């Protein structure tokens, strides 16, 4: 006869194994906070440029008209440079914190659950990113920020099936901001900063509080 404790342990093992084998659960809350801070810093740099930006926007538009689709044309735009730096800094920092966490939880950082997550996140992001570049080319600048939020929100929604379930709510929040932004065009940077900045920070803190606080204390 098995003891109560043994049976409860077995059942919780089953549950853990089911989660471990289907989702990438080492996503760190600090990754969210770091990405959010990057976004806010990026937005702060972009703000003065966009504010007196007729010049910058014309330059961006000219770049498209005369060079069509070329990387060097994009790189001439300060805004585009800021966007790239922001994106890669956020990406590297979130990888770093998640890597640290995966060492703690003893799950492989680049295991098959992680690969599946990255794949399911990247496909909508890449297709959506290309669409946004085309929006820029067409000069539809006011739809860029809601476009980013929309693409990111849908990507998160898709990715949430392969990682912590809470990611889904972050996705809903981005989608909501995107939709509201569509009716308040011209305030794109503010919505962008709330979505990519504030939301990430809030999400990160909640996730840290929920999953990492306890283990940090017992270490």
């Amino acid at each position, binding site marked *: 006869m*098995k*003891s*109560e404790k043994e*049976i*409860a342990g*077995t*059942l919780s*093992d*089953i*549950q853990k*194994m*089911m989660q*471990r*084998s*289907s989702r990438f659960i080492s996503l760190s809350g600090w990754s969210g906070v770091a990405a959010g801070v990057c976004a806010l810093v990026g937005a702060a740099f972009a703000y003065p440029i966009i504010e007196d930006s007729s010049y910058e926007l014309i330059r961006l538009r000219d770049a498209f008209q005369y060079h069509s689709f070329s990387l060097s044309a994009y790189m001439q735009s300060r805004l585009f440079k800021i966007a790239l730096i922001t994106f890669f800094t956020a990406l590297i920092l979130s990888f770093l914190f998640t890597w640290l966490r995966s060492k703690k939880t003893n799950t*492989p950082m680049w*295991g*098959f659950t992680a690969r599946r997550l990255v794949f399911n996140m990247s496909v909508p992001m890449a297709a959506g990113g290309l669409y946004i570049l085309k929006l820029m080319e067409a000069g539809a600048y006011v739809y860029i920020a809601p476009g980013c939020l929309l693409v990111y929100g849908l990507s998160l929604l898709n990715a949430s099936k392969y990682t912590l379930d809470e990611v889904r709510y972050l996705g809903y929040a981005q989608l909501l901001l995107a939709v509201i932004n569509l009716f308040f065009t011209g305030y794109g940077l503010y919505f962008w900063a709330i979505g990519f900045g504030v939301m990430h920070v809030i999400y990160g803190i909640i996730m840290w509080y929920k999953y990492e606080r306890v283990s940090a204390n017992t270490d």
Partner: protein
Amino acid sequence: MAISIDNLNKIFDSRIRLGIMSALMVNSSMSYNEMKEILTITDGNLASHVKSLEENGFIKVQKGFIGKKTNTTYSVTKAGEKAFNAHIVALEQMLKSLK
């Protein structure tokens, strides 16, 4: 209570076999290497447990190739799904009766 003990499946007594079944219940199929990664066990160990589950008709094995490398994937059978669910129900019942 006597009934629930009968429903406990001897095959699932092993933690590793239970782990294999749990993982396969939530993944439509998994490769040998993915399984090894999740269970963090050695080759020989995994092979013997997989074999016993296969012999009992609880999982099916598909052998394929990726390029020149063999790629073996596993999935749970209808019988395996049924037995596993019955096992969990039995465990839960036992837990209830003990409380």
